[in-house]
C-alpha cells in the first residue's frame, strides 16, 4: 500500500527566502501531485508530475520528481506573503484501474513579512 510522507509539517519563513518541501513515498507511484489549500477552502491543483526527472515551474514554485529515490520536492523561490497556505503532495498508486490518491499530511507554510 502506498504511503506518503511530507516534511516539514510546519514551515515559517521570511519573505524573500528560498525553501524546499519534501515528499517521500513508499512504493511505485504512477503520478505525483501537488496541491495548495487555503484555510476553509478546497484543494487547488498546482502540479502533476508524470515521469522520472520531471520538473514543472509556475511563478515562484517549482516541483520535481525523482522516481528512483521515490522523492518529490516543491521549491519556493523568494517567498511572498500570498504563498502562505498548506501544501499537500499525493501519489497515485500503480494499480491498474484504481485512480485513488494517497495524500501526505501537508506542510503548513507561513510567510512572515
Amino acid at each position, binding site marked *: 500500500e502506498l504511503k506518503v510522507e511530507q516534511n516539514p509539517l510546519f514551515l515559517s519563513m521570511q519573505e524573500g527566502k528560498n525553501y524546499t518541501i519534501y515528499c517521500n513515498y513508499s512504493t511505485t507511484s504512477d*503520478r505525483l*501531485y501537488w*496541491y495548495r489549500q487555503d484555510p476553509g*477552502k*478546497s*484543494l487547488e*491543483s498546482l502540479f*502533476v508530475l*508524470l515521469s522520472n526527472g520531471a520538473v514543472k515551474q509556475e511563478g515562484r514554485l517549482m516541483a520535481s520528481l525523482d522516481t528512483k529515490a521515490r522523492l518529490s520536492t516543491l521549491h519556493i523561490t523568494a517567498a511572498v506573503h500570498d504563498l502562505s497556505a498548506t501544501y*499537500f503532495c*499525493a501519489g497515485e498508486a500503480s494499480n491498474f*484501474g*484504481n*485512480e*485513488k*490518491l*494517497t*495524500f*501526505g*499530511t*501537508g506542510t503548513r507554510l507561513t510567510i512572515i513579512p
Partner: protein
Amino acid sequence: GAGVSQSPRYKVAKRGQDVALRCDPISGHVSLFWYQQALGQGPEFLTYFQNEAQLDKSGLPSDRFFAERPEGSVSTLKIQRTQQEDSAVYLCASRVGNTIYFGEGSWLTVV
C-alpha cells in the same frame, strides 16, 4: 457547471441522525472520488466510481457509510447514525486525464 459542486456546504447533525451529501461532478467526467479530511489532516480516500460502477470502497470507515452514483453523474454519500468522529470535511473530486478537480467540500459537524 464550471466546477465540482457539493451540497450542503455546511451541515450540523445531531448524533444518531442520518445525513446525505451530494456531489455534482464536472459534466462528462467519468471518474469520481470521495475523500474525508479531518481538521489539520490530509484528505483520506473513501471511495471511487467510474461512471456508475463503484470500483473501490475500501476507504469507507464503516458500514454506516454508503455511496452511490446511479446514473454515472451525480453522486451521494450517505452516513447513517452519525457519530462525533464523523465530523470532517467531505471532499468530492472528478477527473479528466491527469487533472483531478476538487469541490469546495461539505463541512459536517456532529454534535
